[in-house]
């Protein structure tokens, strides 16, 4: 089935899968966003325990999606992996540390003898929420703004900034997307709490906090998209593979790929609708609109970054070194093998959905805290 596809078709197929995983990852960042709000939403110890448990049974999905996103990127576009991870060393390392801290915090926080005390683990969760969202946004923004690297004949990376990735923080557009993702994570976190936790006080705090987070998110997001539409982009000349700067490249990509444009607009509507029904109608279903909206928005932005003869990982100092999905990809054979594996993704999604519903049937409430039946963080 897949072996008869052209190399280009497989490269495009895998870029779509990367985009799906990227979209899923940002949606699932509601865990990170929620982690930064534990003290603002939960005023008492019991309230905070409820919030942490609401997140605690979902954090592994986000974590696993991040690991799979990395693995899939490695397998399908190894040149990106070697260039970006090896080059932007510190950006990835800081991100990595933020996730190491998260992985132990839930399990250790309430255990006797945990050495550092519950507050420390809660701080770890906060750090993970802040850095995990912000830095990921910054790195993804560099898919449009570019990074300072060159490639040798043998495809070895030379990163020209001694800051090794931290230089990405000195670009205003990168910062804007980083902050946008941070506030998006918090917005999604609030919507998730609203959906999962049954407690009057918590619900009141959620709505107040939603104003403080959804508005900054929307402003930052609009700022980023406006700038993106107006800037020059890294385009590929399909005849000779040369990279050149094309005015309004990303705007053109949306216009020239109407399906992506429709997805993107639908995404924006869903995101706003989910926030609005929570704010104005006190609905708890907001996450089911803003979540998929987020997924679609990120998905379509990834397609804008990599499709329609666009270099998805541009070099700001040597445009010809920029990575395109053609240049960075694995061989035809490997992509074929991987494509068969990708057929498992719907099955995975199905059992995640099934178990998610089974576990979330009952809302988390104060009663459950004292039932003693479940594993508690």
């Amino acid at each position, binding site marked *: 089935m897949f072996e008869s596809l052209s190399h280009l078709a497989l490269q495009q197929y895998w870029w779509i899968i990367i985009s799906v995983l990227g979209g899923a990852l940002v949606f699932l960042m509601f865990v990170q966003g929620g982690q930064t709000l534990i003290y603002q939403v939960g005023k008492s110890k019991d309230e905070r325990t409820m919030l942490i448990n609401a997140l605690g*049974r*979902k954090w592994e999905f986000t*974590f*696993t999606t*991040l690991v*799979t996103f*990395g*693995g*899939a990127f*490695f*397998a*399908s576009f*190894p*040149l990106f*992996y*070697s*260039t970006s*991870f*090896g080059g932007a*060393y*510190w950006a*990835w*390392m800081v991100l*990595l*540390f933020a996730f*190491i*801290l998260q*992985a*132990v915090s*839930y*399990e*250790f926080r309430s*255990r*006797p*003898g945990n*050495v*550092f005390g519950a507050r420390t683990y809660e701080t770890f969760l906060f750090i993970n929420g802040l850095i995990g969202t912000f830095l990921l946004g910054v790195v993804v923004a560099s898919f449009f703004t570019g990074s300072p690297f060159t490639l040798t*004949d043998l*495809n*070895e*990376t030379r*990163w020209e900034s001694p800051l090794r990735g931290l230089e990405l923080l000195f670009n205003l557009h990168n910062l804007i997307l980083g902050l946008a993702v941070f506030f998006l994570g918090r917005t999604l976190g609030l919507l998730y709490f609203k959906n999962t936790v049954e407690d009057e006080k918590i619900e009141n705090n959620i709505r107040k906090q939603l104003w403080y987070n959804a508005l900054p998110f929307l402003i930052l997001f609009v700022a980023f998209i406006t700038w993106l539409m107006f800037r020059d982009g890294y385009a590929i000349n399909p005849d000779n593979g040369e990279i050149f700067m094309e005015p309004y490249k990303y705007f053109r990509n949306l216009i020239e790929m109407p399906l992506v444009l429709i997805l993107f607009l639908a995404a924006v509507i869903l995101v706003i609708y989910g926030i609005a029904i929570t704010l104005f109608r006190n609905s708890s279903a907001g996450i089911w609109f803003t979540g998929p909206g987020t997924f679609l928005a990120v998905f379509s932005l990834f397609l804008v970054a990599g499709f329609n003869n666009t270099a998805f990982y541009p070099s700001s100092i040597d445009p010809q070194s920029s990575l395109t999905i053609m240049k960075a990809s*694995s*061989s035809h*054979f*490997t992509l074929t*093998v991987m494509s068969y*594996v990708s057929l*498992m*993704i719907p099955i*995975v999604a199905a*059992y*995640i959905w099934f*178990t998610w519903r*089974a*576990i979330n049937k009952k809302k988390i409430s104060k009663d459950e805290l004292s*039932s003693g*039946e*479940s*594993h508690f963080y």
Partner: protein
Amino acid sequence: MLENIDFTLVNWSRGQFALTAMFHWIFVPLTLGLSYIMAYMETMYVKTGDPEWKRITKFWMKLFGINFAIGVATGIILEFEFGTNWSNYSWFVGDIFGAPLAIEGIMAFFLESTFIAVMFFGWDKVSKRFHLTATWLTAIGASLSAIWILVANAWMQNPVGTFFNPETARNEMINFWDVFLSETAVNKFVHTITSGFVLASIFVIGVSSWFLIKKRELLLAKRSIVIASVFGLISSFVLIGTGDSSAKEIVKTQPMKLAAMEALYEGQTNAPLVAFGILSGKENHKNVDADSQADFLFKIEIPSMLSWLAYGDTDNFVAGIKDLIMGNEEQGILSYEEKIKRGYEAQQALLALKKVQKNNPESPEAEALKAKFRDPDFIENNVKYFGYGNFYDPDPEVLKKNAFKMVPPISMTFYAFHIMVILGGLFLLLFAVFLYLVMKDQLHNKKWLLWAGVWTIPLAYIASQAGWIVAEVGRQPWVIQDLMPTMKAVTHIDVGSVMTTFILFSVTFIGLFIAEIRIMIKQIKVGPQKKEDINNV
């Protein structure tokens, strides 16, 4: 030319990876084994309806959860480090190495993380049978994730199913099943996973022994010991069996590793096995030359055993370190000097290709060079030794010296191997004795033996780490056998950055380790939930 290599950077990068991998491996084997032990216990609960089984299951599950978290936290570091610290490697073999990592994520990690949530939070939310299924799926998910990363590791030890593509300057996969089902991959997976089963069994026996010593939770302890010693006993046999088949395969694919494991300098027929030995330390891998000899202060040998282990025939010749470096015509062994020259030729052909392609990618000259890389003779005689070319030097004397540098740390490999084997035998004995005594109901009054059970726990961890030292230190200087030396795989970065992350990792790991150990011990001391709350368990 070796003087162009920044060995400080290489060593810090290696150190960081070793630190992470070894720390990760403290937690993984227990996860691999304990998950099945728990699943079996829960099956007993569902079958018999005896609430005591549920208490037992939940107790071990709690310990499992504490251990699992750190395994996850450290696993992601390894994945990232392939890119951050080994970026040349990531490109050179990403076409093969990336796929198992991605499959691992899609196939195994989601299975594990989804059903672990049901396992921990589902007791009162899903049916008994669904819960039991979730526990089994968690165990299977853990094993599946081990398969893929071990396939990737096995490929580095024995790179099959691939070819070198000069166009992209990397290795590309041509046969997935060769990679997946190579002898190395199968041995490695079965050997590694059963080592996890053995370690977990010892953990369960050790903790249960402590309860028996303290005269607490007698039923829990005895039931757990029965299950763990049976599981451990069966796993031990498989572990030893695959250890044996690994040796037979290593002698073909990584003869230098085998020679280092036994500190065998001179090859011989009817080669004896050093069952136990102490090296004087005067000879080491840094000063190997044509006159080097093994220098045991003391050793116990089993005659002809090494030949038999490696080939199943005592008359066979086992190559020593010096045979492999200097060559041995009689045995058809090519010298490293020759391999270096041949690999260098392949590298030069690649560079020449890149040079002519710059002017005209389609020129006849470029086509001729590309055709070379498709020529079976050139592949067999030159490309196969691609990595050796990195040790080339125009000065023949230097080249000769470089060949003697391509030796793994001998004493470390030797000791790690022997510690692993001796402890493996001891564990087998322990399982047999514990099973016998617990069945006769004689165990609880053998206090010294129970203490021995407790103190075997750290030994299990030592044996497990030693196994990886044999595998990874023993294959140096290669990161991919014969194709890429470790020194060529690293990311070009200032050594200060790697030193800084090394220190950050060390501090983080020490902190996490102390917290984990204290929580674990505390949780064991607290023990399972009280029986009075049985309705609430």
